[in-house]
């Protein structure tokens, strides 16, 4: 579009919200499978769910909630012209994302060292419902972890734009959309955490 600078913030946010719907529906497929299989294998889901460590999950929940707070404050900071503070807060968000992934790495490693991973000999000896539980667990947390990485990359990209002043106190819709995406990553975890770590205990 030569010459025409078209800025429509409402439109940009509107598009982002539509995209977030699609993300919810993507995870919706996994939640649907969880619901169906939980109804079919309630006892086996409970016995398998006890294997998960609520401290890993709970710790990661705290980390993600804190990171969402950082993002929310960073947007206000940028709007008030506090660019350095905004960048520091976004940097803290990325650190939180890294802590989340390291935590997840240790959690998965512990599971794998106990022989619980798709296709392992130990898994093959389990009850069918337990196998379904762990398959779902790996797929859901794996897909969510992928979204954490993508979200961190999006925030890093927003930081670069802020440094270059392409995103600033007058033009901050990109940061707001990046923040919306990060809140979605957080929100999905808010559902994953109780379904896998809490209600089965």
């Amino acid at each position: 579009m030569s010459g025409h600078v078209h800025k429509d913030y409402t439109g940009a946010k509107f598009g982002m919200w539509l995209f977030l719907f699609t993300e919810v529906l993507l995870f919706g497929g996994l939640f649907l499978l969880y619901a169906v299989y939980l109804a079919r294998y309630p006892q086996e889901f409970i016995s398998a769910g006890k294997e998960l460590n609520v401290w890993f999950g709970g710790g990661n929940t705290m980390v993600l909630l804190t990171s969402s707070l950082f993002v929310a404050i960073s947007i206000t900071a940028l709007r008030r012209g506090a660019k350095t503070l905004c960048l520091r807060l976004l940097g803290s968000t990325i650190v939180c994302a890294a802590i989340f992934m390291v935590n997840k790495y240790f959690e998965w490693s512990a599971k794998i060292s106990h022989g619980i991973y798709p296709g392992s000999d130990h898994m093959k000896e389990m009850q069918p419902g337990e196998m379904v539980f762990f398959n779902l667990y790996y797929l859901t947390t794996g897909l969510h972890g992928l979204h954490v990485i993508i979200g961190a990359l999006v925030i890093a990209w927003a930081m670069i734009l802020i440094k270059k002043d392409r995103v600033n106190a007058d033009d901050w819709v990109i940061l707001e959309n990046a923040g919306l995406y990060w809140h979605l990553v957080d929100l999905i975890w808010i559902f994953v955490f109780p379904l896998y770590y809490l209600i089965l205990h």
Partner: protein
Amino acid sequence: MSDVRTTPTSDRGFFDEGQYPGIFAWLLSTDHKRIGLLYFWCIIAFFCVGATLGLLLRLELFAPGETIMSAQTYNATFTLHGVIMIFLFIIPGIPAAFGNLIMPIQIGARDVAFPKLNLFSWYLYITGAILAVTSLFTGGGPPDTGWTFYVPFSAQTSTNVSLAAVAVFILGFSSILTGLNFVTTIHRLRTEGMTWMRIPLFTWSLYATAWIQILATPVIGITVALLFAERVIGTGLFDPAQGGDPIMFQHLFWIYSHPAVYIMILPGMGVVSDIIPVFSRKPCFGYKAIVVSSLAIAFAGSLVWAHHMYTSGMSDMAVLVFSFLTFIVAIPSAIKVFNWLATLYEGSILLDPPLLYALSFILLFTIGGLTGLVLGAAAADVHVHDTYFVVGHFHFVMFGGTGMAFFAAMHYWLPKIYGRMYDKTIATVAWAIMVIGFLILYISMKIVGMQGMPRRYYDYVPEFTSLNQLATVGSWILAVGLVLMFANIFRGIFKGDPVGDNPWGGASLEWQIPSPPPMENFGEEDPVVTHGPYDFTKAGIL
């Protein structure tokens, strides 16, 4: 519509106004018209490949036993025919090609809401298409599962299903982004005076379609991702040996793929709704009813997926509920058909090629829709499930419906985009040949299906020979019509006579600007709309 002032900078409109030199004027362009044409030519190319595969399938079925290909080749060929036609032709066909070309102009916008995202969608489409084609020549051979990728077979076959699943995921992502772009565009970029009840019905149908794209496509994304995971890392969520349930794959698959048939048909209905009033010289009868029925189809169509699964072992209660909901969808479809007929009634009909293609849409779609009711009734479906009756049915609605609407859109809007006219007599002859070939081909399929011939076999018992030969002859007639139609229209748009701004006498915005349209569609000032899209009197056409 009135008060549209444009200042064409050249006779060839946007064709002369590329931002980058040479081929990059296309590959890097964010202009909706250029992106629309990129889609259009890719879609035409894939249609030709898919149609050739279809002809080869018919040739194999000319006689019982092995005729020109082995059973395994036949399985791969029909899978590829389905995947190409569904994911690379019908789904993106009208929305991505003609939606991009026409929709922004119809609402008085200079482009879509997110032009860069629009170009990105095209690159995703091409990437998905290349991966789909690559899956044929790499790995363990071309996928042989049919386009539905049903587990457990798709999880076990040694053919290259994994890559095809990745291709479907990427194509779905492209479709989502296009839908998201269109919904935002229609909400945000309507020009002054373009109220919701003045939006042309083609754009309305794209709006309903785009919502389905946004809300249904992610589900096939996760479904093929799970299939991929099951094949690659062994997370057998659909594998009974690991406690999974293959039926869940079917549910998830059809939660997308049934609404997807409305992604395919709704834009076709929109094309027909736009064409019929213009060639009847009458306002569209029941404009609001057509708008509401589009939205109703999008809504109700999302609730009927399990009617593909009557014989999968669902409970009788579920079968009855889904059968009932399926009949509900017939109501808004019929509302449209009656409104089109009422529009034609007492109109001053001009039998130009776009109207002929639109009329054949009504005929063939109605036949296809009525045979759909046979399949929607649970008791009748058990008899004809997985027979050629089903193949005949969906070719009537998809090819006779969406395919014909795509051709109607080509004959209606390509002269606008290229500024040149094809030979109308040849277009009419080609249309007649196609319809005759079509009816011979697919009616034979329906009859042989009623007699019990199952789909997806390269062989059949000798009793079915004569009907299969008739169908194959029909496919040749159809192919002749297709070749003639394409040759005529492509010669016309490159070498035909200039058409002027408004060759058909349309009243919507795209006919008020030069052909081909200039770079940003409208001149310095945005158009101001003062009347509805089919108000030919106020537009000064009548």
